[in-house]
């Protein structure tokens, strides 16, 4: 039994077909990345799962329940931190809980404290660094307690060093809370470092050209980034994506 299932999903905007017959199954507790070139319709896929777009064709199931076109079943973390500037860190983190009508400030405080934000609970977002903002944004999405976490290129705007820090942090948090994560990225290294499985997308109209099971054991640390197997896989995926471009 699978946790999230996409069957034959197609979506076009006018003449422009973005997704073509996409099938995907994800097991509970998995960390799955969707890797593809910019403009390959990765975000559209999230909008479909999030229910703010309807597919032209195909269905989406979460725990065997159809959720096609239904909102509020996923935790979402966008590319930009999207924190509300008039809310303090703690108020921002509690936002999704408010939407669901639950209030549990203590959990929010605990999680923010663990994320190293204890001194910033009552600070406003403009007082935080880029990495801190993303941490708050991630904690906010964790606090919505939906079992599926959709992260849309969350570290795309960060510099190399901060990004690695954030990736390690994300892995540690993930091992602790064990949610199912669907992670969008265009960074091959990031996908390999974080995920259990990777779906490589083609250019538009996007479908899955390859599914890669990442063989490395957890916990992973940054030495893995220089391991020959890691580099070999990175190279394979790189050429896979490049050939794709040449074929088009």
């Amino acid at each position: 039994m699978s946790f999230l299932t996409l069957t034959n999903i197609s979506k076009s905007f006018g003449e422009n077909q973005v997704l073509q017959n996409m099938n995907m199954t994800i097991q509970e507790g998995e960390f799955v990345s969707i890797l593809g070139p910019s403009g390959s319709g990765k975000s559209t896929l999230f909008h479909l799962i999030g229910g703010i777009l309807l597919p032209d064709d195909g269905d989406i199931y979460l725990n065997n329940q159809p959720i096609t076109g239904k909102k509020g079943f996923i935790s979402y973390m966008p590319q930009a931190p999207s924190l509300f500037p008039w809310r303090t860190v703690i108020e921002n983190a509690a936002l999704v809980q408010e939407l669901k009508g639950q209030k549990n400030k203590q959990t929010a405080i605990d999680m923010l404290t663990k994320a190293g934000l204890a001194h910033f609970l009552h600070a406003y977002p403009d007082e935080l660094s880029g990495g801190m903002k993303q941490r708050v944004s991630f904690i906010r999405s964790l606090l919505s307690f939906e079992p599926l976490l959709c992260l849309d290129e969350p570290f795309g705007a960060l510099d190399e060093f901060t990004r690695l820090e954030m990736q390690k942090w994300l892995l540690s948090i993930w091992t602790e809370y064990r949610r199912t994560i669907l992670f969008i990225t265009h960074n091959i290294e990031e996908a390999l470092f974080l995920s259990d499985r990777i779906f490589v997308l083609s250019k538009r109209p996007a479908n899955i050209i390859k599914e890669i099971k990442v063989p490395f054991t957890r916990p992973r640390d940054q030495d893995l980034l220089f391991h020959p197997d890691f580099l070999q896989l990175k190279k394979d995926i790189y050429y896979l994506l490049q050939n794709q471009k040449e074929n088009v």
Partner: protein
Amino acid sequence: MKQLASTSWRPILVLLLLFIAWETSVRLFHIETWLLPSPIAVIKEAVISWETFSVHLFATMRLSILGLIIGVLFGLCVAIILHRMPFLRKAFYPLLILSQNIPIIVLAPLLVIWLGFGVLPKIIVIILVCFFPITIACLDGFRQTSSELKHYMIMSGSNKRQLFWKLEWPHALPSIFSGLKISATYSVMGAVISEWLGSKEGIGVYMTLSSSSFRTDRVFVAIFAIMILSLLFFLLIQLLEKLCIKGNRKKEST
């Protein structure tokens, strides 16, 4: 307080110089008081006639505060309704602008003919003057809500009501306050105009009585009173704004 003193000394100095120039030229050219009274004469008159004038002042204050509150509530309601129902916005937005093209001076006597000499026509005049800045500021504030945050809210499963109260409303607050400042200063003028229509008390009444008996010094007392009252309203709104707007909102404007 210190900050207030350090920022406001410049305009106060300019005002002071202006008064000095006025005072000296009145003295120098021997201008008659009924033509142009000197500022000192105006202040003297204000002190002497305070007892009778204060009655008019407080009447106008009451009227303009009442009118302002109703006008602001009306303006906010119109903005929220037009925002929530885009088809209404398309139909009514041009009419809103037209409503501001009606000359109040002409409309006011008509309102008296229709509704009598009571408070109602006066309040309507003030509402008409006050609601427009609020409504426009509010609508613009709602419309400029960051699409990024909106997208996040919708993806997180927020409904329309939550989207409005948790995002659009707080996001529009700074522009609403800009509208409020304009409305608050207009409300005093609106009240004075409405009092010209016929009223027992108020700065408007005091003004017409004074000018028809060539008591120019009293007319100036009324003018100064209106200016000070408007300024007070403005400062009050500014104080409210400081209390209501949390976080640093500078980044949003970029």
